């Protein structure tokens, strides 16, 4: 008998009496001001949130903030000629030297500051992790209250996606928080009014 058959047979023999799934899996904690809560959640994890009216203003702000940076990449068409690092590579290892990636993402979650990004918006899955510094651009009106709402919005049918909440971090040495473990050393989130 294969391991599969053995395991399934043993489970059928030993499983408890059938129960039903809970009907309600949606709970409160809806925030009156979702944007304020989103900003609060992100500032607690060392992430700056910047509101800009449109993509033109985003461009101006980005030029102001990251003037001297080289090896910058972006998936935002309005920043295409600003970026100096092409994402048109076949081997993701070639992204190793990216200093800053400004990426279009989908939506944010107020309760924890998480932002959803997926294959839909990414030429390479490793991009938000391998870049030294990261910025997300999401529509200002895309913030949901909590994770229950997030999964209602999430109709993603792509092969991979991730909730990212803040820069990479660790506290594995004596519980001292250190920002920049293996992933991005910093995160900035741009909320765009009219994307």
């Amino acid at each position, binding site marked *: 008998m294969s*391991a599969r058959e*053995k*395991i*399934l047979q*043993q*489970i*059928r*023999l*030993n*499983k*408890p*009496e*059938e*129960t039903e*799934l*809970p009907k309600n*899996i949606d*709970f*409160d*904690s809806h925030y009156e001001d979702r944007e304020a809560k989103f900003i609060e*959640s992100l500032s607690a*994890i060392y992430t700056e949130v910047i509101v800009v009216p449109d993509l033109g203003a985003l461009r101006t702000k980005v030029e102001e903030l990251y003037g001297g940076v080289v090896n910058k990449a972006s998936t935002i068409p309005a920043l295409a000629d600003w970026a100096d690092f092409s994402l048109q590579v076949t081997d*993701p290892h070639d992204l*190793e030297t990216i200093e800053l990636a400004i990426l279009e993402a989908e939506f944010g*979650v107020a*309760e*924890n500051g*998480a932002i959803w990004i997926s294959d839909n918006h990414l030429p*390479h*899955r*490793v991009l938000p*992790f391998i870049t030294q510094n990261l910025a997300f651009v999401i529509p200002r009106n895309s913030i949901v209250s*909590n*994770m*229950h709402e997030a*999964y209602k919005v*999430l109709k993603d049918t*792509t*092969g*991979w996606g*991730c*909730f*990212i*909440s*803040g820069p*990479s*971090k*660790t*506290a*594995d*040495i*004596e*519980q*001292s928080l*250190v920002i*920049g*473990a*293996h*992933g*991005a050393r910093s995160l900035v989130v741009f909320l765009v009014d009219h994307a």
Partner: protein
Amino acid sequence: MSKVTLDHASASDVFNADEPYVNWHDETLWFVRHKRDKSSKQLPEWEALRQTASDIKHYVLSHLDTLLETFERKAKENGVHVHWASTAAEHNEIVLGLLRKHNIDRMVKSKSMLTEECHMNDFLAKNGIEVIDTDLGERIVQLRNEPPSHIVLPAIHLKKQDIGVLFHEHLGTEEGATDPQYLTEAARQHLRDKFLTRRAALTGVNFAVAETGGFVVSTNEGNADMGAHLADIHIACMGFEKIIPKQEHLGVFLRLLARSATGQPITTYSSHFKKPREGQEMHIILLDNGRSTQLGREDFRNSLKCIRCGACMNTCPVYRRSGGHSYHNAVAGPIGSILAPNLDMTKNADLPFASTLCGSCSNVCPVKIDIHDQLYKWRQVLVKQGHVPKGKEIGIKAMSVVLSQPRFYQWSGKLGRAVMKAMPFVVNNSLNPWYKNREMPEPPQESFRDWYIRNRK
């Protein structure tokens, strides 16, 4: 790896030799527990979430076979290879076989308690495969040649001075350097090179979703994603109880997991894998290793609801003062003590006794496992089946004789009080385990029973 395994009490003795160190360990974990409290109290629906998570997991236990079949079908449709392993040995052989097929002898691995349970690194090393653990805490204990002492905080038993010495030796950091920022940066550089040069990556699984055939891996460091997205082959290993029915259920579990573990509202990365990227191979190994037996033990099956947050360890007064290694099991603490006897009753008979039965573990458990009740029930099973040392068994039987006969009990109490008063040295000596680290109390003048009879009139 220690060669001689001490039982929990003996290992705790060693751990307790340095009192300031034990106090520090105790306070560090209590601090994490406190962060969990603060975080959970910000959600008015916390208790409802716990109950819902527990109920979903109960549904999972009662539908495990069909959920696993659905998951397998969906995962295959997504282009993922699904493997089944009955035992740890089968699991390890599957991993080895996949690596051999691709001529790979070096692999990066993110946190997976399952591979600890299977002693996979040792097995692969014996077969010429180098495994680099990429979670910072796990890399630290790997360089020290010891297992993690905590499932979420693998190096929580170490001081920064220990890590400074270790990194000076292995990573060439400055001698005497202990700054966590500096040490973490050194590890980042060291491990970045590994991510960029290894063709295989192994990850654990926090949740697998039957409905989509996908699985979620949570980290704060980003090491699971760095490994998986750069490697030609991604192997994800899970105990089959990690399955949940629907994607929307992740909303419940992701709200509970990080808050219970470290007090964060969510981990930095909650990565949802479904299909391999173009040109990549993705494999999932579903492991039993005694889980289907535990499923049949009515009193203990709820232990399979565990989502590995570690809250029960952080709150446990025994864990905090004895350290994870004293439990000689991949999963330590209260939850480890109810999982381990299922794997080997003889080797792990001491663990259900490593508890005060205070119940704090059950109170913080995000899926409401009745941990302390199960600890109590395991004790009975273990004594009945003859797995406890003779001394303990005789003691328990003597207690039973005394406590079941009121007259004998009264007489014993009187005798005890008289002896303690007249000859305190009989109990105040190192032969009496209760005398360790404490004075024996002054014997009372009379028993409560005598006092009650006298005062009732």
